[in-house]
């Protein structure tokens, strides 16, 4: 907790500014590539969530064409997604750590953090504002020009305009230092591979040299979108559990002016000044319609016996359930006072419940997936807690104990995969067919599996021959529909591919072979912060291996058929080469004058070949 406080002393923007290497903005080459990724992935995510088949248009233009790299580029990404409501635009693009969501489902980026980082990087290197154009309804478009106040972590709006438009969607444009001559091939690879794993999207890329890369959608239906689900107990750590507790166990709200006006509003007393007893009458009457914080404030008022005016002059210090005392600071008297709480009062229960939170078993069943009442009781026994213990009363040591027990208890059912969004066999298959135009291709989607409480699904495709070039086996790695382009060598997929004995499947090592691997998970176990290579978790490795074996067997049977066809062809070639020689030698050896009539024998193999096909 203390480390968090020291973090808070600098703004998140400042923190990321100082640690931008971590987020992939270490140099102009890598930064340009990362910025492209962040914006494209945000666009694709936004379209996915709103069920729109994405049409993303990305362009990179040099500010001054004739300058040598690295130089300033303008990166613009435009999508046909839902756009962002006007009032959220400044915060979404002008602050770091805005709009974080803690729900658990598969998405490309986590919190939209990277986009802000890209904007920040652009501003640092070029001191130019970000331009955001957003339209949610396809009629009106809000256009913002903003800078980021790094120290205050606040947007500074330079220009704002409302314009008419014809289509909904979001356009973000930044100016940044980049090196396209070095990053270009990676960016093109990225666009190419992204469209392979997103066959329902159209992606266009105008590169600085004037080249246009356009990948139109191959399938017209989007894979079913994932649902947000509660976390699995195995995938939890102390920090997450602490946040969940804060979230559930309602804290005593700060009774400030805005809270008081909220209370007034809910009680229908916004304009009226009434005394304490009248307030409590209203409370009783309207109790059922009151929101939780208002109920808590009302309960406090019942013990304090104060009206709104008086309430605004004190600060609640502690609800001491043990001693049945309510302690507050009186600004007028500049001293701490306390009142006794009557345990018989109906408001007493409300207050203590709020302070202590719900019971452990109820917390477990309500807040986690795969935990029913029976499992919860079993678990509580295993973890050596009391079932009726209130979660609000837990000490830090108890939290650690709880978190450890959640991870080690092995009677939880495996995680719910409904939060995953695999691409699906058909779109993957079509993508592979269109991209590689192979002689043979096959795909498989494995059933859901889990590692450390995180569900995952492996999808894999294999393609052979056709337009694929020989040499080494080409492995395209994807995680949550993002291509992984760097650090190939240490990736678990590569490990599995390399450990495969291809000879067993009648495949030579230099065969024209492509393997497409897609890992979908709520948390992909990346090896490094760069998020480019997946660690070799045994559960994932096993699933990858099984998927590859399945596909290899299919390839193997194709190869045997191909082998037969090749043989027939080869046979025909051999016959037409050797039979005339046999004819020649036998004619000379037997002393005949004319060669035997062997022509029909050379044609025969073709007939055989047609039959086998």
């Amino acid at each position, binding site marked *: 907790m203390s480390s968090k406080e020291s973090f808070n002393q600098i703004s998140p923007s400042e923190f990321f500014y100082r640690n931008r290497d971590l987020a992939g903005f270490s140099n102009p080459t890598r930064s340009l590539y990362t910025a492209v990724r962040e914006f494209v992935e945000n666009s694709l995510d936004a379209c996915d969530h709103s069920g729109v088949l994405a049409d993303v248009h990305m362009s990179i233009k040099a500010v001054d064409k004739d300058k040598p790299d690295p130089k300033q580029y303008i990166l613009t990404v435009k999508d046909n997604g839902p756009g962002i409501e006007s009032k959220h635009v400044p915060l979404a693009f002008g602050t770091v750590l805005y709009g974080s969501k803690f729900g658990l489902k598969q998405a490309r980026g986590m919190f939209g953090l990277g986009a802000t980082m890209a904007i920040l990087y652009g501003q640092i290197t070029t001191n130019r504002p970000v331009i955001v154009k957003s339209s949610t309804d396809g009629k009106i478009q809000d256009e913002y020009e903003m800078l980021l106040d790094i120290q205050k972590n606040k947007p500074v709006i330079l220009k704002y305009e409302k314009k008419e438009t014809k289509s909904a969607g979001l356009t973000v444009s930044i100016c940044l230092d980049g090196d396209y001559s070095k990053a270009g091939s990676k960016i093109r690879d990225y666009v190419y591979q992204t469209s392979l794993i997103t066959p329902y999207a159209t992606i266009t890329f105008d590169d600085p040299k004037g080249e246009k890369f356009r990948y139109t959608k191959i399938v017209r239906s989007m894979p079913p979108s994932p649902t947000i689900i509660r976390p699995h107990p195995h995938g939890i750590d102390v920090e997450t559990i602490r946040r969940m507790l804060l979230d559930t166990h309602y804290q005593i709200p700060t009774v400030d002016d805005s809270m008081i006006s909220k209370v007034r509003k809910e009680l229908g007393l916004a304009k009226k000044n009434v005394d304490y007893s009248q307030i409590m009458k209203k409370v009783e009457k309207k109790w059922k319609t009151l929101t939780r914080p208002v109920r808590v404030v009302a309960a406090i008022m019942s013990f304090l016996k104060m009206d709104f005016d008086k309430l605004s002059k004190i600060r609640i210090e502690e609800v001491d359930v043990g001693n049945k005392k309510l302690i507050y600071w009186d600004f007028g008297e500049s001293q701490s006072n306390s009142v006794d709480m009557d345990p018989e009062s109906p408001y007493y229960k409300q207050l203590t419940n709020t302070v202590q939170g719900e019971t452990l078993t109820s917390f477990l069943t309500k807040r986690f997936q795969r935990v029913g009442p029976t499992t919860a009781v079993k678990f509580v026994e295993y973890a050596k807690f009391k079932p009726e213990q209130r979660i609000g009363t837990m000490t830090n040591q108890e939290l650690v104990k709880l978190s450890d027990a959640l991870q080690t208890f092995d009677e939880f059912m495996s995680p719910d995969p409904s939060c995953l969004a695999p691409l699906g066999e058909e779109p993957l298959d079509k993508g592979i067919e269109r991209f590689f135009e192979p002689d043979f291709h096959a795909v498989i989607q494995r059933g859901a599996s889990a590692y450390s409480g995180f569900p995952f699904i492996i999808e894999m495709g294999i393609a052979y021959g056709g337009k694929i070039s020989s040499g080494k086996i080409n492995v395209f790695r994807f995680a949550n529909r993002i291509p992984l382009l760097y650090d190939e060598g240490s990736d678990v997929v590569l490990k599995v591919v390399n450990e495969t004995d291809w000879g067993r499947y009648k495949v030579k090592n230099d065969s024209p072979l492509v393997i497409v691997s897609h890992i979908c998970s709520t948390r992909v176990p990346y090896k490094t912060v760069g998020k480019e290579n997946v660690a070799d978790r045994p559960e994932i490795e096993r699933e990858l291996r099984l998927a590859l074996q399945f596909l290899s067997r299919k390839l193997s049977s194709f190869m045997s058929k191909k082998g037969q066809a090749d*043989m027939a062809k*080869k*046979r025909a070639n*051999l*016959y037409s080469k*050797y*039979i005339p*020689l*046999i*004819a020649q*030698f*036998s*004619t*000379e*050896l*037997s*002393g*005949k004058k004319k060669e*035997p*009539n*062997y022509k*029909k*024998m050379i044609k025969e193999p073709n007939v055989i070949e047609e039959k086998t096909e």
Partner: protein
Amino acid sequence: MKKKQSKKTTKEKQESLIDILKGYGVQAYNDLDKGEFPKFSIPNRSISNIIYDKKLRQYILGSNTSLRSAKNTAQLRSFTQLLWLAFFANKLTKEKKSSTLRDVYYSSQAFAIDFEDQQESDNIIVDLEAVLSRPREDFYVFPEERSSIFGDLTIEYTIPGYEGKKMNLSDHPDGYAIGPSLTSADLVDTSAELVIAIEKGGLFTRFIEEKVDKKFKSIIINTGGQAPRSTRTLLKRLHEELSLPVVILTDGDVYGEHIAMVIKSGSANAAHLRELTVPDAKWVGVWATDIDKYKLPTIPMTESDIKRCYDLQKDPRYQEGIWKKELEVFLKIKRKAELEAFSKYGLTNITDKYLPKKLEEAKSL
């Protein structure tokens, strides 16, 4: 003076070979003409089909044969190569043009017969030998000459340009190389009563100098180590056509013993041929027992010598008589002696003392 009706034999042999070869050509021609894939039956030369025939006293091929068919793509190439070789052998035999293994390899290139290396063409040559049951010398493929002959033997050439020309093999004191012309010549006349095959050129020269040919009424042949097949053919012809007994003198070691054995009963490598052995040939020395008997200077056997002894002990031909006994003595004393070892007692000791004694001994073998 003995005289044999051998003129006919050589000619007949060649003609029958040409007929056989032609027969294969006709067979392949007719098959093709009928739209069928031609095939040859080839005796199987794998180890499992090599057996020792006690009656013939040599290794022979068993009854297993394999079919080489032009229909089978795995065999199509080698079938074509074999047919080409038959065609080429036919040509060589007709025109009486000698060639070597290497010549055959290069000649093939003129006919688009793609032998990958000489090893492959050599193999096909052995295949043809097996099909015909004839050594390649019969179809004019000869090894490099390294063995020679000396003695009172009159021959008559059959090769083109020398037909009818006669020659006595005691006219030149260095002896005569045993080459294609000599191997194919008719054996006309001899006064000799014995053939002495000797392993080494040095001793061959000594024997001529010491007039062993006259003293022992013999024809002397230098085998130059392991006797080439043309030399073995010649030895066989001398034995069969002129009824001359053959004795063999080698170094006193396990390799010498085996040189004698190969002349006598052939090698497993040539199990497909039956024209190469002289089953009545006698190994007269140097025996392991001679080493002690004649107090010969010796050198120790090497590990490979000893291993060779153990290997030969498994060979059915070494299960009896002097073959078995001498092998055991070699293993016991673990020493060996060369033919030159006799020089310790004077250069002519071997011809004056040792040879007469051994020839006497041979009569009782």
